[in-house]
């Protein structure tokens, strides 16, 4: 694992530096745009910027990380490295999920601190991100699944893996959201359901008021555990199996 990690770092350190620079520049630009037109934005823009960088940069990082799966000669080289499939997959997960997540968070807070040291004003406190409160950090758990889906997609599709995986994720969200509304309408007989989140809640209008219906807390806790902990394990295992089956 140490030798694999050294390889991963030494071969791509130039890219890591460039990506960090690109993310820092993008964050600075986004902070500038939201600060310059601050009257047009409501509070909490910092959190929005955080998510754009986390998922957008994460996808770019993954696309680079799994490039070895796109070229047969590089794939042969990768498969020939003396390490088990489990070690190679584990290292990818460590880089794509944990190192990127931690590295990005550090870059984000550094750029935010730098920007607001320059651009101070009465609204600057409101514009700052607050990632570690009000359960916002749960987006990290979504990010874990997002990155793992990209890994599975890269091992599944031979060409255009990133685009195909992202499109499939979008398609899933559309089908899940609309399908869930249809399902809830059918199950409850309530025709005024306006929105819903699968495995979470639905909203309907009663006497002109929005009513939210949530799952019982115990079932919701079970779903959270499945979604945030079991699903990443399953996805990691699927990625491992796909990698062991990889042919040229």
């Amino acid at each position, binding site marked *: 694992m140490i*030798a694999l990690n050294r390889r991963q770092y030494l071969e791509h350190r130039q890219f890591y530096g460039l990506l960090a620079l690109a993310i820092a520049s993008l964050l600075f630009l986004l902070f500038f745009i939201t600060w310059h037109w601050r009257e047009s934005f409501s509070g909490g823009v910092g959190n929005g910027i955080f998510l754009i960088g986390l998922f957008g940069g994460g996808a770019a990082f993954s696309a680079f990380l799994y490039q070895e799966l796109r070229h047969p000669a590089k794939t042969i080289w990768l498969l020939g*490295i003396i390490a088990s499939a489990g070690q190679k997959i584990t290292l990818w997960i460590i880089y794509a999920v944990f190192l990127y997540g931690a590295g990005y968070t550090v870059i984000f807070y550094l750029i935010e601190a730098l920007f607001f040291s320059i651009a101070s004003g009465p609204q600057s406190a409101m514009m700052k991100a607050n990632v570690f409160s009000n359960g916002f950090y749960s987006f990290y758990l979504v990010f874990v699944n997002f990155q793992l889906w990209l890994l599975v997609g890269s091992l599944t599709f031979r060409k255009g893996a990133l685009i195909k995986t992202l499109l499939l994720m979008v398609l899933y969200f559309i089908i899940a959201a609309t399908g869930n509304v249809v399902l809830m309408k059918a199950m409850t007989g309530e025709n005024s359901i306006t929105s819903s989140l699968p495995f979470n809640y639905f909203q309907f209008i009663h006497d002109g008021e929005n009513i939210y219906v949530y799952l019982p807390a115990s079932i919701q806790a079970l779903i959270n555990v499945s979604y945030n902990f079991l699903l990443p394990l399953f996805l990691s295992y699927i990625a491992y199996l796909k990698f062991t089956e990889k042919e040229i």
Partner: protein
Amino acid sequence: MIVIKDLTYGYHARNTLFQELNLTLPQGKVYGLLGKNGAGKSSLIKNMAGLVFPQKGSCTINGLEARHRRPEFLAQLYFIPEECELPPVTIPVFLRIYSVFYRCFDEAGFYEYLRIFNVPEKCQLHKLSFGQKKKIHIAFALAANTDVLIMDEPTNGLDIPSKIEFREIIARTRRYDKITIMSTHQVKDLDGLIDSVIIIDQGRVLLAADKEEIGQKLSFSAKRAGDDTIIYGIDAPGGRMTVSRNTGAETSTLDLEMLFNAAIYNPSGIRAVFQTQ
């Protein structure tokens, strides 16, 4: 030892390239795997390297199944593909990254091979030409000292001086207790380098024999047409060059190209002599 047992392989389930192929390659030899374009050479060596999986049967190296690609298996094997890619690093960094994976890596040998190949030691690997990349791969592979070295079309992309350097390096690094397999359709490139010849065509092994055995069973000489021992013949400026059954203790120099043509154009004649399946 490489043992291929009842190997059935195809690009698709219905389209098989190899049907129950059997082949055993003992160690201590340099094998030339010859065949026309599309004969199945690359597929066969990819099966040996665990890069593709057989539909049926098995392929093992020293008892380890190739398709499982376990680290113990990978440690015994170095595979040089036809298309070579190298990471965007310098040679010293490349060595620092990859030499640690190979227990018996010979760093001095690696630099010596680079010197013979005239590859500059200070360069960014990904910026090198195709031929230069291939030379680095070959140098690294030989320095890695693995039990099995498989090279797919090793001379493709090499210019004429580089092919001579390649022959010099292979001749110099006699891997006495190891297996070296060189797959090519450029038969002449391997002349004098190999101990054993494997000729395949349309997924079948037409010939698998040591040069010594070939010399005992076949004769390469000028003969007149009509001799019923002739398996294959071609008109050449000096007369009709033939491959014929060696009925006595005739000695002749093995001509790989003639042997290859004989196997391709008269497979039944060659199989009858060597009693291949």
